[in-house]
């Protein structure tokens, strides 16, 4: 653990910008994040509420080409994508957002190693920030995290007056700060463990989901759901994608990987016209079950970091935590 002066931290950032790194910081009261060109644009604020969109698009963009192709009368020529080697450094990620990176990296590195994800993830350094924000939608403490969880972060910052406390948590983090160690003052600080007051028994929730696949409950909690993909697209852990080919000139085209959402009616629509998830209740069940059961069954992790974005932004105010609470109460 180290202490660093805020202005020294800024110097490091400017240096990193100069050496060609992509620095991502928050703006607009934490609603957005963007690439910055100077440390003056930095805003490190532990009271920001989670940004409207999550940080996942840094490693999993809303749309990206997989390859390009060119057709001739009797042949098809493919061109692969060259990956960008630029480093991306995210500054001030909330614990719930930082954790999401490591969560989804599991699915992208399960049997198939997804280079489109990995090439970006490997070049991304996440500097987490202790969070002091909590509203009625936050529930990170219920999914095994806390406001000071460091999971997923390469470096973690805590604010302390004019200084930052810095935790170096990974090789990536270490390598990044290596040239700047002179700014850092080593300090031992008693790390305080957050009081976590859980009300949800996740085992019980999983069991109930397993046993109640066809329960009318799914209909009753999703009746107002409009079937948009907003919750999935702003979620830091939702990672479904669709693959489409785009023909853009007479002979040429490309294959695209785009965000997709299980709440869309078309998501499971078969070519035959049959749709196994034909009503919204089944789609909503999938959302809950994937996050709290299927992903856990497979990867021993929840596909939810409790950021509360989906509830905060839902057009019809469906609160995912309320749903979990209801299941828990059964």
């Amino acid at each position, binding site marked *: 653990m180290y202490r660093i002066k805020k202005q020294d931290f800024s110097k490091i950032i400017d240096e990193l910008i100069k050496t060609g790194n992509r620095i991502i910081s928050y703006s607009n009261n934490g609603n957005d994040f963007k690439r910055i060109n100077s440390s003056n644009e930095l805003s490190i604020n532990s009271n920001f509420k989670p940004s409207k969109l999550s940080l996942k698009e840094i490693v999993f963009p809303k749309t990206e080409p997989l390859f390009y192709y060119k057709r*001739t*009368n009797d042949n098809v020529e493919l061109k692969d994508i060259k990956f960008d080697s630029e480093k991306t450094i995210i500054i001030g990620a909330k614990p719930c957002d930082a954790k999401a990176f490591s969560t989804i990296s599991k699915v992208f590195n399960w049997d198939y190693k997804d280079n489109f994800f990995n090439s970006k993830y490997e070049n991304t350094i996440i500097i987490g920030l202790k969070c002091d924000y909590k509203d009625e939608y936050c529930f990170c403490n219920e999914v095994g995290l806390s406001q000071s969880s460091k999971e997923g972060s390469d470096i973690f910052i805590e604010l302390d007056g004019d200084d930052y406390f810095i935790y170096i948590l990974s090789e990536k983090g270490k390598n990044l700060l290596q040239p700047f160690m002179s700014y850092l003052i080593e300090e031992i600080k008693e790390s305080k463990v957050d009081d976590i007051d859980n009300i949800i028994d996740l085992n019980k929730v999983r069991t109930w989901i397993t046993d109640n696949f066809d329960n009318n409950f799914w209909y009753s909690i999703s009746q107002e759901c409009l079937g948009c993909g907003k919750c999935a697209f702003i979620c830091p852990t939702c990672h479904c994608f669709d693959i489409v080919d785009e023909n*853009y*000139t*007479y002979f040429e085209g490309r294959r695209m990987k785009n965000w997709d959402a299980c709440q869309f009616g078309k998501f499971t629509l078969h070519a035959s*016209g049959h749709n196994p998830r034909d009503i919204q209740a089944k789609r909503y069940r999938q959302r809950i079950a994937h996050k709290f059961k299927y992903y856990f069954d497979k990867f021993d992790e929840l596909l939810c970091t409790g950021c509360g974005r989906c509830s905060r932004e839902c057009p019809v105010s469906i609160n995912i935590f309320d749903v979990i609470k209801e299941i828990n109460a059964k």
Partner: protein
Amino acid sequence: MKIGVFVCHCGENIGKTVDCPRAAQESAKIPGVVISVDNKYTCSDPGQNMIKNAIKEYNLDGVVVASCSPHMHEKTFRKAVASVGMNPYMCEIANIREQCSWVHDDVEEATKKAIDLIRIAVEKVKRNFALTPIKVPVTKRALVIGGGISGIQSALDIANAGYEVVLVEKEPSIGGHMSQLSETFPTLDCSQCILTPRMVEVYQHPKIKLLTYSEVEKVEGFIGNFKVTIKKKPRYVDETKCTGCGLCTQKCPIKKAPNEFEQGMIKRTAIYVPFPQAVPNIPVIDNTVCTYFRTGKCQMCVKVCGKEAIDFNQKERFVVEEVGAIIVATGYSLYKIDKKPKDSPIKGYGEYGYGIYPDVIDGLQFERLASASGPTAGEIKRPSDKKEPKKVVFIQCVGSRDESKGFSYCSKICCMYTAKHAMLYKHKVHDGEAYVFYMDIRSGGKMYEEFVRRAIEEDDVKYIRGRVSRIYEDGGKYIVKGEDTIAGIPVEIDADMVVLATAIVAQNDSKKLAQTIGIPYDKYGFLNEVHPKLRPVESSTAGVYLAGACQAPRDIPESVAMASAAASKALVLFGSDMLEREPTIAKVNESTCAGCFYCQKVCAYNAIEKKEIKDRNGNFVKYVAYVNPGLCQGCGTCNATCPSKSVELIGYTDEQIFAEINALATL
């Protein structure tokens, strides 16, 4: 898909401006093209044989001929490919002559354009479907609406060819306006003498079902398969019992209803036959004046009728007739100039005093005065005092050719009938003077000009070129103030009687009828033909034909010619058992149709219907649009209007047009 491309030089026509060999080489690179060659004259026999051989040799699925406009040779090439077993709709034309080589000079650019046009055609043909013409069964039976001379002619022609005809007439008798006329121009034949035999022939024809005093209420279906609901208005006289003895009409005590046939110049009884030669000769009771209907008393007609034919309890009845073709022959009406029509921009001719001065009359009234069977037994007498008028002024173009006060069109027949009227007057009143105010004399027609000259030269009718500004009464005379524009002087004539050649207008219910049938009409209410030159008797709705003055002002020979033409169109239809129609029509994707029916709103042919979709258990799921293949003409407006593209036009599908645009893509 295996596509063949054939680039035609058309001699020098294309070859001079477009590098055809290069176009063929470039076309060969298009995915799917297996053979691409150029040729001097592709439409020639050797050229066509080349295509036919290539189809066989390369087992082609589609052919693109890059040549002249598809309007020139599309049929030729489609026929050629069909002769070797390829579906004709798998042949497309790239128009590199009219729209490329003939309009450009730069060889390089014209060649590039030609290649693009070929690409468009190749991409389209790859997505073409093998189509077969749609076959619709034909009900060989016709409906004729309107029993004037046009309707009579059409009905007789079709019936004489051996097909059944239903003839619907809204008045109690057939005959129409022609039965009101005294003599006809240019021969001065007696109108009734030539018409009445035709009326009787209709009545007695075994193939003609005559429904008088009836109106078309509803038309469903499409060409070859119409279902028409006809309303029979109550006559209150049983047609099966009445012998037409006429006793009831003589005894009826109510004698003050205006006689429509005599243009209101005399009165008739409450139970009446419109005119002595009426067909059918069966009276009808006018329930608005009949004492029984007004007070429940009288029943004089019941008392005198030996056949017990009077039936006060008759109600409206509806009959449904199935027919394959409809001929609309509803005729015209005369512009009533005394009243300004409600909500009409037409200003009217109040200054002529029609409707105020009894001796200012219209053309049809004069016809009745001149008719031997008319109210004056053919003697010309003023309606006001029954005196013989010694000076009569005829005014032409009252309401016609007058945008500011009437209609911009020419009523066409007035020049001729005015000449006839003046002539008839002079023949009957030898010492009388006849004046005609005219704008131009339009006497196109066999013996027409000679007829007008005869009126002027032999019968001394005085023609004054000019308009009349005002007519007013002064001591029993009508002072007609006008202008002689040739002499350039004002004219004033103290006439005893004035006859106005008022404009011919559409029947006042023509728009309603057009909407019932689903055919278009112009702003005046005349029914529209689909093409003014080449398809003058067809409406835009297949199977509905037009005859006579319902389409525009027509004289008798024209009406009869149109009527026979319309009849022959119906007979062409009846000539085959099944009707073949272009298969390029719209089709609905029922699974994605949301049933907003915007397609129905934009369809000009009423081709879109509501269809109920049920699930396996018979439960209602939703309404979707359904395209009636018998009615759809393939314009594709529905396709462009549908927000979800759930209706597509076969032959011009979204996929095809997308591919055509894509064929031009550059980045």
